């Protein structure tokens, strides 16, 4: 059976590597380097993160894109052929929202990839709720999910929502 791919995107420090590390069964392949910006951690992804999940006979690949815009060519490459995309943004870091919206607009204007927005750090108030972020990003409320990327049942929430919306939309297409 052909492996499926879900891409995890978003600005630097949004929690992409953490989410993939939380969900992946295998040790994730990462390409981290010292962060050039103050993002609350020393290392940041510069090429991609890669994790896997075996679900019965279905293999799921999780690809994390680098957050820095100088690697934007990777966003498009990684999103190509993906089953869907999760765009993460830190709920306690509103200064990243414009960057997240910019990334989302860019990716969606090039690729018709199903997507959801994940708002991380819901366990660390004060934090924007998914509904508030949906309003800012101009997204329908159902397309924005709150999560804590370090907790498996919470980290999987955007994937579940993505698949539910995909199924709903696919059945409505002519």
């Amino acid at each position, binding site marked *: 059976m052909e492996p*499926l791919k879900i891409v995890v995107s978003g600005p630097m420090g949004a929690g992409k590597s953490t989410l993939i590390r939380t969900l992946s069964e295998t040790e994730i392949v990462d390409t981290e380097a010292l962060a050039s910006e103050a993002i609350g951690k020393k290392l940041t992804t510069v090429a991609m993160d890669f994790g896997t*999940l075996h*679900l*019965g006979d*279905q293999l*799921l690949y999780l690809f994390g894109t680098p957050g820095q*815009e100088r690697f*934007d060519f990777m966003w498009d490459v990684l999103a190509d052929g993906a*089953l869907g995309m999760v765009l993460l943004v830190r709920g306690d870091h509103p200064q990243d929202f*414009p*960057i997240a919206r*910019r*990334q989302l*607009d*860019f990716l*969606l*204007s*090039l*690729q*018709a*990839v*199903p997507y959801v927005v994940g708002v991380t750090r819901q366990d660390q108030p004060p934090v924007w709720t998914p509904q508030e972020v949906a309003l800012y990003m101009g997204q329908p409320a159902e397309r924005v*999910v*709150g*999560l804590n990327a370090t907790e*498996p*049942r*919470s980290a*999987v*929430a*955007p*994937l*579940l*929502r993505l*698949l*539910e919306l*995909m*199924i709903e*939309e*696919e*059945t409505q*297409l002519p």
Partner: protein
Amino acid sequence: MAIFGDLNHMTLGDLLPLLGAQDGAMEIFNLDEHACVTLYFRSGKLQCLHVGSRPADPLVARSTVSRLVSAKRGSFEFVPGAQAHRCPQPLGWPLDKLLLASVAVQDEINELERRLPHPQTIFRRVRYHEPEDDRLTEFLRRAGDLLDVGASAADIAHRLQIPLDHTQYYLHKLRQLGLLEPVRAQAKRSNRLVAAANLLTSLKHRFFGERQAWNH
């Protein structure tokens, strides 16, 4: 009178007030982006701007002045009394207002930085309304046809020969006014419905066991 020098030592912002009372042409050469730009002044107004030997339309002229105001490289020389031989669209911009507007736009672009749309994001016009801002009106007049079918900042900047960051700035402003929206690539039936449904069931089972409810 000899007004000449280098933009590295004296910016166009310093020079414009000097030229308020002069009629003539300021030639600026050895620039990073253009071989030569000539600004023609009369009665305290910028009457015409040539990029190379070609007169610039208002949109290009505005962007060029804005670039020149922040340029750190280039030599200039003022030729008193010189007039433009060709000026199909006279500008008639008062120098004080021009300087203020140019500096303000460049400052705003620097301030907005990464909030400006990505150069490759495609925008389309969704509402027809003339903005009150002359710069935006002029931009829409020139870029309207492209935006009716969908175009990115990179496309528009290339077609209109204006700086990319200015184009991103105009798109940002027009989006804020609700006149443009980013285009969404059209979804096609992907034949992945079964795969998505199976994956959903498997993920729920993996992370929630027999519990079908999940909270988020």
